[in-house]
């Protein structure tokens, strides 16, 4: 059986799982575990088979079914790139299913989640397996709709309904853009199969339009600024394991679409295409993380961080395009590998973090960090796993997030050899943005972990929280372990990405696994190298050494006492630093410009016992300057066009008539 057949078979099974889930939800609600268990098995085998396929470097396998549009049929194909993304998707889905075996117990409306869950996973897989525009768009829309259904699982809350509405509008818009992009790529002959698109390179103007449409279509799904507005609304609205899937995996499917179209279907990219993507990536990364810093809803914070990481991935993609356009194969391979590795890493730690936030949500019923605190005592294992995730997403060595960002930096440092002035200026600027967003991400996760898990409980719910169930905990700990594993042995993943990069760019990074000590040398040893394993070993050895020396030679006595706090006795938990106060300096420095943040302090006069008030006013400028005017314009036009519904028959005929005459006039003038 070829790999593509195997994957399709597993997906067919996932699709069939949906009616079973409907039946179960109706007849035996207690049996919901079975759905997640079967999903786990299916996705895990698919992940395994696609990893094996990616490692084998075998030629692509494809399959054509006589479905869909008659003269096109349904093409499916699994090549190296699809294998990489299948592995990411299915590994993420396996993690989410594993986690959900425990987490699903808390689901209030399982009937609204269970049927769509396997469908959503299958839809993502089918997008990646599709090999013609029709199947691709169909699967893409299916993915949007199933995820929308999952976002609307808790539809009683007004915010969730709003999130669902914004999401479905943006998703439809994105599909429209992709549809047009494929239309342009297919050309007048209507070559909707990818195979024929690959053979024909579009004209320069078309290439530019395709890039724009792909950035609008897939970019809106991935969440690049300013198309990101739906993401922080929709991702947190879903149940946490689905949030993990949407943030950790579905955004990656969008990245897949970008890579597939730009690197595979649309022919050789121009250098300034790369620059557009690069600059967008840099802006997205910085804006995303700044938004995250302003947020005190734990899940929304994570969703905003997805935007940041998408920006980092886009930086890698933009660099790869720029280098490839200039024939610098090795540098392009480094950039693309960095981007793909970050795709994988982000799916790991973002899933982990959403799992953790789900556990917190279940234990306390709170997503607002200002009501959390001290959970490290009540939920030690969740806290540990969440901490690893925080460190990984903050790009701290020796975890995996650092490795991919380090590789992106290395690619950025190769930019001086680019011939174009624009790129030479844009790349260092993007590098600075990347450094800024990495540092801000660290600040943000100090805030997230520090306020939610450290300190003292800010609400009774947080004080009473209990450790989450064994399945969820195990899932989180395994994923934390994976974050560490790929931080210490990045060569494993990088070598597995090699064939995919090779197939797209005709060059790849040198195999890293043969280098002793798992050293990572992307270009040349004298230029740069990094060894996560050795760093980790050194740190471990130093810790053990210092512990041993101090405990043996000096003191090991510990006395517990009241909090010192420079002599302020017994402050209440409310006097702790909150999420808002933690972000205040950064808000002052960046927020006034980026969010037009304004602080309002209402202090009662001395002697008055009224409480003081402190309000922060934050604006999402993308929303206010782009979406609100566009929506108002649509509203106005619709209001005007509304009159068209109430015309007389004769006026309708007049409209038809005038349209016909206008078309004929066009024909008369232009032919």
């Amino acid at each position, binding site marked *: 059986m070829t790999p593509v057949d195997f994957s399709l078979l597993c997906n067919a099974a996932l699709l069939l799982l949906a009616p079973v889930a409907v039946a179960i939800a109706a007849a035996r609600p207690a049996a919901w575990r079975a759905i997640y268990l079967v999903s786990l098995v299916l996705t895990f085998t698919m992940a395994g088979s696609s990893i094996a396929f990616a490692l084998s470097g075998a030629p692509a396998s494809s399959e054509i079914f006589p479905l869909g549009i008659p003269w096109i049929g349904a093409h499916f194909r699994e090549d190296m790139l699809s294998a990489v993304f299948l592995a990411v998707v299915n590994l993420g889905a396996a993690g989410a299913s594993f986690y959900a075996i425990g987490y699903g117990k808390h689901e209030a409306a399982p009937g609204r989640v269970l049927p769509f869950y396997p469908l959503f996973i299958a839809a993502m897989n089918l997008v990646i397996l599709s090999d013609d525009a029709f199947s691709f768009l169909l699967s893409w829309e299916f993915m949007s709709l199933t995820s929308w259904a999952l976002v609307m699982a808790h539809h009683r809350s007004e915010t969730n309904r709003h999130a669902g509405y914004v999401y479905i509008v943006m998703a439809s818009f994105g599909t429209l853009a992709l549809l047009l992009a494929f239309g342009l790529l297919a050309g007048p002959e209507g070559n909707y199969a990818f195979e024929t698109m690959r053979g024909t390179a579009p004209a320069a103007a078309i290439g530019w339009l395709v890039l724009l449409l792909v950035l609008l279509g897939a970019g809106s799904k991935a969440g690049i600024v300013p198309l990101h507005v739906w993401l922080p609304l929709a991702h947190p609205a879903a149940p946490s394991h689905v949030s993990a899937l949407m943030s950790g995996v579905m955004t990656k499917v969008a990245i897949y679409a970008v890579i597939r179209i730009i690197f595979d279907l649309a022919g050789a990219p121009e250098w300034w295409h790369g620059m557009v993507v690069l600059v967008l990536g840099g802006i997205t990364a910085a804006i995303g993380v700044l938004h995250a810093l302003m947020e005190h809803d734990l899940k929304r914070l994570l969703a905003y961080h997805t935007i940041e990481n998408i920006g980092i991935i886009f930086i890698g993609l933009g660099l790869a395009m720029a280098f490839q356009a200039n024939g610098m194969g090795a540098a392009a391979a480094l950039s693309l590998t960095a981007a793909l590795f970050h795709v994988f890493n982000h799916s790991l730690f973002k899933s982990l973090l959403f799992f953790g936030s789900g556990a917190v949500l279940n234990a306390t019923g709170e997503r607002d960090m200002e009501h959390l605190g001290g959970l*490290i005592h009540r939920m030690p294992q969740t806290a540990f796993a969440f*901490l690893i995730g925080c*460190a990984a997403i903050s790009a*701290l*060595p020796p975890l995996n997030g650092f490795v991919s960002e*380090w590789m992106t*930096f*290395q690619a950025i*440092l190769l930019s*001086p050899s680019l011939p174009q*002035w624009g790129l*030479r200026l844009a790349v*260092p600027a993007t*590098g*600075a943005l990347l450094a*800024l967003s990495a*540092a801000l991400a*660290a600040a943000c996760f*100090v*805030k997230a*972990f*520090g306020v939610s898990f*450290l300190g003292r409980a800010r609400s009774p719910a947080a004080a009473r929280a209990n450790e989450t169930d064994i399945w969820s905990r195990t899932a989180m700990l395994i994923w934390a372990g994976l974050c560490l594993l790929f931080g210490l042995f990045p060569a494993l993943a990088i070598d597995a990405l090699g064939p995919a990069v090779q197939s797209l760019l005709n060059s790849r990074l040198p195999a890293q696994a043969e280098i002793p000590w798992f050293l990572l040398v992307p270009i040349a*040893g*004298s*230029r*740069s*190298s*990094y*060894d996560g394993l050795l*760093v980790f070993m*050194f*740190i*471990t050895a*130093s*810790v053990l050494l210092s512990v041993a020396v*101090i405990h043996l*030679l*000096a*003191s090991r*006595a*510990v*006395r*517990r*006492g*009241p*909090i*010192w*706090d*420079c002599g302020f006795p017994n*402050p209440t938990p409310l006097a*702790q*630093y*909150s999420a808002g*106060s*933690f972000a*205040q*300096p*950064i808000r002052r*420095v960046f927020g006034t410009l980026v969010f037009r943040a304004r602080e309002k302090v209402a202090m009662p006069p001395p002697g008055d016992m009224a409480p003081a008030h402190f309000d922060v006013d934050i604006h999402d400028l993308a929303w206010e300057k782009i979406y609100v005017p566009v929506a108002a314009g649509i509203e106005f036009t619709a209001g005007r066009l509304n009159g068209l519904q109430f015309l007389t028959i004769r006026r309708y005929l007049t409209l038809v008539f005038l349209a016909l005459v206008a078309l004929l006039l066009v024909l008369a003038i232009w032919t």
Partner: protein
Amino acid sequence: MDLIVDYSLQGVQMLLVVTAAPALTGLVRKVKARLMRRAGPPILQPYRDLARLMRKEAVIAANASWLFRAVPYLVFAATWVAAALVPTFATGLPFSWTADLIAIIALLGSARFLLALAGMDVGTSFGGIGSSREMLIASLAEPAMMMIIFVLALIAGSTQLSTIAEFMLSTEAGLRVSLGLALVALIMVAIAENARIPVDNPATHLELTMVHEAMVLEYSGRHLGLIELSASLKLLLYVSLIACVFAPWGLAPMQSGLLSWLIGIGTWLLKLAVAAFALALFETSIAKMRVFRVPEFLGAAFMLGLLGALLEFVLAGF
């Protein structure tokens, strides 16, 4: 045989940095005190402080978590490893390939991340204010540092410190304006990262503008000792970094003999002393700035780095 020499050299470097670090801090304090016409504590006072702190029992807040107790060790270990990876007296040590400049800076970032978390662990307003501001300063310093790394990589074609140092030693480097700009920017970043005046005041405890000291306010005993040692190590790291990039004279090249190593150690100690004098002089001649002027300070460092990179492009004649 060579292998043993190599590894023992690495060991020597690790021991060297950890033993020299408190002396550097002590020297800075001494010079500062003399400049203020005080007698000041002896140069070796930090060693005594450390010994005292290590022997004392640690008093920990009742609600502190395991993270609070683990952080000092982790911070110390990360800083130590980072400091040991910067060439001090010789280049091309066997483990210098483990991490390049970006990784070393990131390793310090890991230490800072953990320390900031520890500041929030007990749940006090002082710890929070310290953590929050520390992260602000870091987020401003990192883009500037990235620009400096960019300039260095542009000139030396590497982010590997040994390679950069060897390049700087060779005649190719020459005198460049962009290097000068990068040097100024790096010094500014180093001042900010090490919580020195004018960004932060390492000698104060009860001032609302303090950053680093507020963050570690709850620590005592051996934990505090480790954190102070880490702070000294970090200062040493930055001085060594500046020395090895901008003043690499005396650095022993790879596979050289005992004599050149000894010369290397001697010149390195000399460089540390010069740096300590310069730092003390700078700190006594300037006042601490308020926190919200730090962005301007580090923004200036960023601009200098960016200017350096642009100049390098222009000079390279593209």
